[in-house]
């Protein structure tokens, strides 16, 4: 019998309705409550759990106490096994982390959680990428890609997964921004890591001859590597998509950082902005930047790869940027454009327009880049 762990961050989403951009920090939470904020995540969790409740006799459900999951499970018609302890009404990120840890120890097959970027980050910090998780979107600011489109979809995908039906497992970005900076109007999102997430396959079966996403991404890596020019310095941005290029080159890779390659050899790993700028200045020949869309909103620059700063981009030149992505990712993103938010509005403007995104072996898609999330 499959085991499902349920964690609800009961305060996620509270800031949004009152315009506070996030609900991290006790004072903000207090402020949100004073402004009449209602918890958003319990309602959304129940919506997802109601769909899973159809499987109530086929699965075991583990939940954290009270508003952190047990209440929502019961309201959805599930009879959860309650583990751990919390102080109801005073829950904190530590409770989320503890819940994830205990569920991992008890060998759950999937953790379904309701929350925002902070919640995803807490879970990642607690248990890393071992156990598949799926987010029910309830947060104010969601940059992470570990969430289903909506609560119903989260319930559907989790149900399919728990019934052993085929869903794809994808590595999805866990991102979080500094909420203090965000409330002051600056976005500073970092890429913290990747969690394994089941996604419903939305592709036709064999008749259409669809290649697997993995095969396409490997084709993309082969394409980029085959076209690598001699004496050109390659700046390889973070992400699982760009990782395949480093794997193709049989070089060590920094998943969350920037690596630098010259003539198929590693020059430096996980470089910071200053080091990167220094390396580029020292290098005599041409340089190219290879980046992919990071996070649920498809940022090419400015989220999770801030090492590649405006001055780095200007030094390398717009024409020397190679954007890579899987076809699936672009299709999932449309009609929204890829985004740039480097912190330099003029540069963002220059980078806007059409880019040829390398999507496979000898295969690319023209896609729009915008400096404005529309």
């Amino acid at each position, binding site marked *: 019998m499959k085991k499902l762990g349920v964690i609800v961050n009961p305060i996620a989403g509270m800031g949004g309705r009152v315009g506070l951009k996030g609900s991290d920090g006790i004072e903000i939470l207090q402020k949100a409550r004073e402004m009449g904020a209602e918890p958003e995540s319990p309602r959304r969790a129940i919506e997802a759990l109601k769909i899973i409740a159809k499987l109530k006799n086929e699965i075991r459900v583990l939940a954290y106490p009270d508003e952190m999951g047990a209440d929502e499970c019961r309201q959805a018609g599930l009879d959860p096994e309650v583990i751990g302890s919390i102080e109801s009404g005073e829950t904190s990120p530590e409770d989320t982390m503890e819940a994830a840890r205990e569920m991992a120890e008890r060998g759950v097959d999937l953790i379904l959680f309701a929350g925002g970027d902070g919640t995803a980050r807490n879970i990642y910090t607690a248990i890393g990428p071992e156990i598949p998780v799926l987010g029910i979107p309830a947060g104010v600011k969601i940059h992470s890609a570990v969430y289903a489109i909506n609560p119903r979809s989260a319930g559907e995908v989790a149900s399919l997964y728990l019934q052993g039906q085929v869903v794809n497992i994808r590595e999805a970005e866990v991102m979080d921004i500094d909420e203090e900076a965000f409330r002051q109007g600056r976005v500073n999102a970092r890429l913290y890591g990747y969690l394994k997430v089941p996604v419903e396959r939305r592709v036709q*079966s064999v008749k259409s001859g669809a290649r697997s996403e993995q095969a396409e991404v490997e084709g993309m890596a082969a394409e980029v590597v085959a076209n690598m020019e001699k004496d050109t310095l390659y700046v390889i941005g973070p992400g699982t998509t760009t990782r395949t290029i480093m794997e193709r080159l049989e070089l060590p890779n920094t998943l969350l950082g920037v690596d630098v390659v010259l003539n198929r050899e590693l020059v430096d790993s996980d470089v910071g902005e200053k080091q990167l700028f220094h390396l580029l200045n020292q290098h005599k020949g041409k340089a190219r930047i290879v980046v992919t869309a990071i996070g649920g909103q498809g940022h090419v620059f400015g989220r999770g790869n801030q090492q590649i700063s405006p001055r780095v981009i200007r030094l390398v030149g717009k024409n020397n940027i190679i954007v890579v992505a899987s076809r699936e990712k672009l*299709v999932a993103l449309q009609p929204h454009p890829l985004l740039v938010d480097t912190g330099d509005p003029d540069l963002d403007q220059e980078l806007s327009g059409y880019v040829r995104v390398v999507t496979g072996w000898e295969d690319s898609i023209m896609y*729009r880049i915008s400096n404005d999330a529309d």
Partner: protein
Amino acid sequence: MARQKKLLRDNYHQARWDESIIFELSVPGERGVLVPCACQNIVSQVGDGVSAIPANLRRKRAPALPEVNQMRVNRHFYHLSQETLGTDVTLGISEGTCTMKYSPKVQEHMAARHPGIVNVHPLQDPDTMQGMLEIYYQVEQFLKEISGMDAFSLQPGGGAHGVYTNASMIRAYHRARGDNKRTEIITTMFSHPCDAATPNTAGFKVITLMPDESGYPDLEAMKAALSERTAGIMITNPEDTGIYNPRIEEYVKAAHAVGALCSYDQANANGMLGIHRAREAGFDMCHFNLHKTFSAPHGCMGPATGAIGVKEFLKPFLPVPRVEFDGQKYILNSNYPESIGKVRSYFGNANVVLKSYMWIMQHGAEGLKEAAICSVLNNQYFMKKIAAIPGVVIWYAKGKRRLEQVRYSWEKLKQDTGVGTDDVNKRIVDYGIEHYWTSHHPWVVPEPFTLEPCESYNKEDLDEYVEVLQQISKEAYADANFVKAAPHKAASHRPTHEAIDDAELIAVTWRQYQKKKGKK
């Protein structure tokens, strides 16, 4: 007045025969046909007929063919046929993009029985098959008129094969001009995937354009992609969505401006016969699937013909031999030194060409135009009815008409009930309708389904189809799980994705089957 009072076949039930694989029916020694022994004077002249074959070419063991009597074989295949839904027993409207029109049976009879057809061999002296060559020649003249192109080849054995041949000619054309820099082909997301795949096979890099907000290929993106490296554009119009691109000339002009060729994928030209021509749209080459628009049955991987048409300046590159008329007789002419060569054995699928010839002759020019008009008219009525079904969404180009087919979406039904397009598709067979075509990969339109009510279908047929979809929508809102557990009345239940996708599990030969099932 409708001839059938009740449109919804809710008492339909498919046969389920528990039929074994024919190899499992094998009984050693059983025979379907007893072949007579050779008579004495043949034996005296050729011996046993086997020892003439060199020893190393002779098989050591007899082939492992099933040994089954004739009546049982006959029953076997009837059982299997009753467990499928084919065009002759159901509504081919389901197979959008495939143009499953009714193909008059007389065409089949001629192709299968007429001695002038079945007794002809392509290696005969052309003087002795003038009739067949005349049919080829005439079909070429018809297609030239229908498209405005200057020459056609009927050699490619399928639609994608035709597109591949066009890509090969694009390459040959640029090479002949000494321009070797052109390595890129541009296509669109809603063109048939072979417009990307076959140029790639022919050695090109492929750039795909996404649709803009209106559902048209993004023209600005195309302008950004065009360069001195662009060899050609290969696009469909109307695309899979059924949306006709009225600005097609602008795309062609932009491509020509950088020296690229323009290839029009008109595999499905059913909404355009006598109305719109590749030449007037500015294209240099085009292709028709004779097995779609021109009424040779389409399916089961052929036989098919991808007829390719070009303007005069590309004629030297067409495949050879070409069927020509020298003023007195029909000849096979291979004297085209710049030709890309042969793309198919002999000169293609003659019986497909024959059926198309018959269909065109039965209709005449006015009839072809009427077929196009009826298919478009059918689609307008159909789309209006389907758009009104709860849960259906029509993506892109709100308020705009579609030509002869529509890519619909069950996204709203999925949001509302959890029932998606795969589920509806499993339920539809419970009402005796063939599963529908969802979409080519990838699913840009979510929860897609693509329907094409060709000119063959009358109002009663369309109404039946609409009624079935209405009923399933109603069922989904009332009891989603019931629909998700469908089919309830079909011969086979839902195959798992692994069973269809996993190369480790798929067995296409008896030997593979035994190996993969661990029986050998």
